[in-house]
């Protein structure tokens, strides 16, 4: 039986990818940020899963205004890093797990979550930056990845509550897969940031840290928070944080199991326009 072993949460700021690709990680500006992921890279080496179910948002890359799926699961055999306008990131292509992805789609859709199934999709920094942060710069990603894209670009975006419920359905789906494999679920994006208008540059470190506290200790309550609170307190792009609730909803304690162990917690301001938050929670 497949098992969710852990969940990982991280911001996916594009400038972090650029810093890695342009060999700037040792610069004074970036050093404190990357230092916060040293433990994580070591942990990943010791806890490499078979598959990562990677929740992220597409930033007007695979999905233009032609199609705006609320939840899209990548069922392809591979996913190519996209050219977002600066040229594609020089990172390995992403190898999918079509069998598990299709199994999850079937289970979750029959559980009343109407996913969009995507057989061809390029992936942007939202997916590749977390991989770079956790794995460094390997020639090939050391495990398979199922991309799961959430619309947080055009309103209405899904509620935190819906995301949290979806995470629970994903856990159930993974645990009903016959092969004996280890799956991690990652929630990415955030934390507080706003990329637009006179309010650009908004950061709310106090709110972010309370979000981390609540995500660990009482995610069901956190999931009730309405969108407008994210916008007001964490900036218009802070809404990405609803995606963290999908990963958190897939953890065992939400279904009556043991509380997860907090293996790592990190917070840093700034990376470009953004507050960076990072957690590793292990199931027990």
């Amino acid at each position, binding site marked *: 039986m497949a098992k969710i072993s852990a969940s990982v949460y991280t911001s996916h700021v594009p400038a972090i990818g650029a810093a890695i690709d342009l060999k700037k990680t040792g610069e004074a500006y970036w050093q404190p940020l990357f230092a916060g992921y040293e433990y994580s890279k070591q942990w990943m080496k010791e806890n490499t899963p078979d598959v990562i179910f990677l929740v992220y948002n597409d930033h007007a890359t695979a999905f233009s205004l032609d199609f705006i799926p609320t939840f899209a699961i990548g069922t392809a055999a591979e996913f190519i890093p996209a050219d977002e306008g600066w040229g594609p990131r020089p990172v390995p292509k992403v190898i999918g797990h079509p069998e598990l992805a299709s199994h999850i789609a079937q289970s979750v859709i029959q559980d009343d979550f109407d996913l969009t199934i995507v057989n061809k999709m390029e992936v942007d920094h939202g997916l590749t930056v977390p991989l770079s942060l956790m794995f460094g710069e390997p020639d090939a990603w050391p495990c398979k990845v199922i991309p799961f894209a959430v619309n947080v670009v055009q309103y209405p975006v899904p509620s935190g509550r819906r995301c949290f419920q979806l995470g629970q359905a994903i856990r159930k789906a993974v645990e009903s897969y016959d092969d004996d494999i280890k799956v991690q679920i990652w929630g990415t994006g955030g934390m507080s940031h706003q990329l637009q208008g*006179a309010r650009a540059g908004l950061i709310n470190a106090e709110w972010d840290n309370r979000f981390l506290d609540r995500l660990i200790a009482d995610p069901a309550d956190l999931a009730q928070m309405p969108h407008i609170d994210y916008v007001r307190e964490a900036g218009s792009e802070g809404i990405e944080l609803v995606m963290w609730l999908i990963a958190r909803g897939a953890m065992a304690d939400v279904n009556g199991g043991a509380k997860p162990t907090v293996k790592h917690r990190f917070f840093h301001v700034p990376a470009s326009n953004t507050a960076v938050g990072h957690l590793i929670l292990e199931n027990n």
Partner: protein
Amino acid sequence: MALDKPYTDVPGTIIFDADQSRKGYWLNQFCMSLMKAANRERFKADERAYLDEWPMTEEQKQAVLARDLNWCMRTGGNIYFLAKIGATDGKSFQQMAGSMTGMTEEEYRDMMIKGGRSAEGNRYLGENGDAQPQNQPQGAAGKKKD
């Protein structure tokens, strides 16, 4: 019934909803085309001619030519789409975001290094934070324009 919009009283912020998306459809789709290197080259070679291939409004074209991202957003642009214009110009997200505040690049970068813009006074229209309409433009870049 009209769309419920609980987010219109946040200062300095335009939420990209269905109304904005409808208004900005061709502007944003033009931006998407810049994800291809060949299109970036054609755009850079003759911006006006390239824009004229799209059924955008004249105002949207002027906003793009002026590289005024606030103006682009008012006409329906979304930052993740507009970022393709910045990428074509070799700009970072920080340079793009900063350009919407009236600050110079250095001023904006310094604000971020010092912990970013505070939410205090910037949660609701009618307060007096630095993102409020009565306190624009911020910084030296905006003031130079006056």
